[in-house]
Every structure is written in structure tokens, then in C-alpha cells.
């Protein structure tokens, strides 16, 4: 066991940041699941909504990427 308390905090913080990525995964899954259930109910309207799907995915994913970025900064940049 070596290292100092600052490094401990850094690693704990990075781990907490990774939780955010996991939560974003739930969000992305929600978007895709709702799109799919809607698309299966009305397949003829599905094609016109793929752009909206990707925008929704992008927005949901961006927040997860932010927390991933915080984790990266804590691990390598602090």
C-alpha cells in the first residue's frame, strides 16, 4: 500500500464518474427501447423518425460522455 490521500480521492472520484456513464447507458437504452416499441406499433411512421432517434441518442449519450470525461480528467490530467 502506497500513494497519498490525493491519489485516493482521484481514483474514488473517477469511479464515481463512471457511475454517470452507466446512468447514461440507461438513458440511451430508454430512447432506443421506446423508439422500437413505437416503431413496431406503427412501422410506416418509423422511417421518418430515425433522425429524431439519433438526436435523442446523442443528447442522452452526451451527458454520459461528460461524466466519462470527468473520470478521464481525474485519472490522467489532475
Amino acid at each position, binding site marked *: 500500500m502506497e500513494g497519498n490521500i490525493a491519489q485516493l480521492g482521484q481514483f474514488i472520484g473517477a469511479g464515481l464518474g463512471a457511475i454517470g456513464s452507466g446512468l447514461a447507458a440507461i438513458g440511451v437504452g430508454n430512447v432506443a427501447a421506446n423508439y422500437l416499441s413505437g416503431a413496431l406499433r406503427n412501422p410506416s411512421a418509423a422511417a421518418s423518425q430515425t433522425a429524431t432517434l439519433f*438526436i435523442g441518442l446523442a443528447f442522452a449519450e452526451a451527458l454520459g460522455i461528460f461524466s466519462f470525461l470527468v473520470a478521464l480528467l481525474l485519472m490522467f490530467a489532475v
Partner: protein
Amino acid sequence: MADAAPGEIVIKPFDQFIVKPLFGGTEVHWYTITNVTLWMALAVLCVVGLFVLGSRGRAIVPSRSQSIGELFYGFIYKMVEDIAGHDGVKYFPYIFTVFLFIFFANFLGLLPMSFTTTSHIAVTAVLGFGVFIIVTVIGFVKNGAGFLGLFWPSEAPMALRPIIAVIEVISYFVRPVSHSIRLAGNITAGHAMIKVFAGFAAIAAVAPLSVVAIAAVYGLEVLVAGIQAYVFTILTCIYLKDALHPAH
């Protein structure tokens, strides 16, 4: 990061993103030719090769490279027309250029031993803030002060409007940040993940599994490279639509 003792596995997933001068030396000035410069230039060359040389024949029945170019052109043209409307088509060349650059930079980055330029926030931020500034200027030129109506929802109750306006202003200024970090973050995360799995290949027991994992993650990254270029472009179209038709 401490140096590894002998026999210990060293995983350095971020060494692939280090900017190095190509022709010796360690200092990087603004004019230094680095690996970033090289791979960005290659991305531009690919675009030029596909669109200038590939469609040089202007054939009625397109050649292979010309039909690839036409496919890209039609895809983005339809996207701009659908989302930004007819008056957005004027800005199609810019959007198409941004898409092609990101698309080819992403895919060149997937080549083994290559450098992924879009993994650097410095590169994507220029693209993101470029879109932000251009869209804001277009908004003010086209609508004058009416562009501020974007932040003042006329259908909301009067009491709520100041609060919504503050939120709208904040979300407007976060746009370029999220726009650029989304692209860089996605690409960085994927490439780092490949390197992490590659590091596990040093352990004999899990090496076959690691090879399978690398193949799977690589497949995912091919998908991500295309989707992120698409997402960047489609968000540009949406911001452009907001600038052209700011009334909520």
C-alpha cells in the same frame, strides 16, 4: 502513473493520442507539422480524391467512386432539406464539408497505427465553435433582433417566460461545448477501450477472449465513427434551423 515492475501488465490506453512532431524535436509550435496535421491532411486528401477525382468524368452512368460520392451528396442534401428547410439548402456546402471531414477523419483513425484527429477536443472544438459562430451570425443577419425570440417562448405563460429564457440562454451557450465534446469523447472512449482490451492480451489465460473483444469493440467503433459524423451533422442542421426560424 508509477512505472511497472517486471512481469506486471502495463496498459497505457492514452498513449495513442499523444501529439508528436513528425520531423524530430519535441516542441510543438503552431506551425509544427505533427501527426495531427498529417492525418487531417490525409482526411482532406480523401475527400478531394473522392469528390474531385472520383466525379471528374461527370458520367451519366456513374463510375464506382462517383456513385459513392453521389450517395453521400444525396444523403446529406436530403438531411439538410428535411431539417433546415428550403432556405437552409443555401448552407448545404458548409454542412457537407463538415460531415465529410469528420467522417473521413473518424474512419482514417480506425486504421491500425493511425492517429485519430477527431479524438482531440482541440480539433472538434474548432468545428463545434465554428458551427456555433456561423449559426449565430446567420441568425442575426437573417432575423435581426428577432433572433432573440429564440430565447423568449411566446406561447409560455408570462410568469414562466423569464425562467425559461434563462434556461434557453444557458442551453444555447452549452451547445458548442456539448457539440464538440460529444464527438471527441465518443471517439476517445472507443479507442481507449480497444487499447485496454489489447493490454489484457498480455495475460495468456484471457488472450483469446481479448482478441474476440477487440474485434467486437472495433466493429462497434466502425458504427460509432459513422454515427457520430451523422449526429454532428444533424445537430448542425438543427442549429441552423433554429437560426433561420427562431420563433418557437
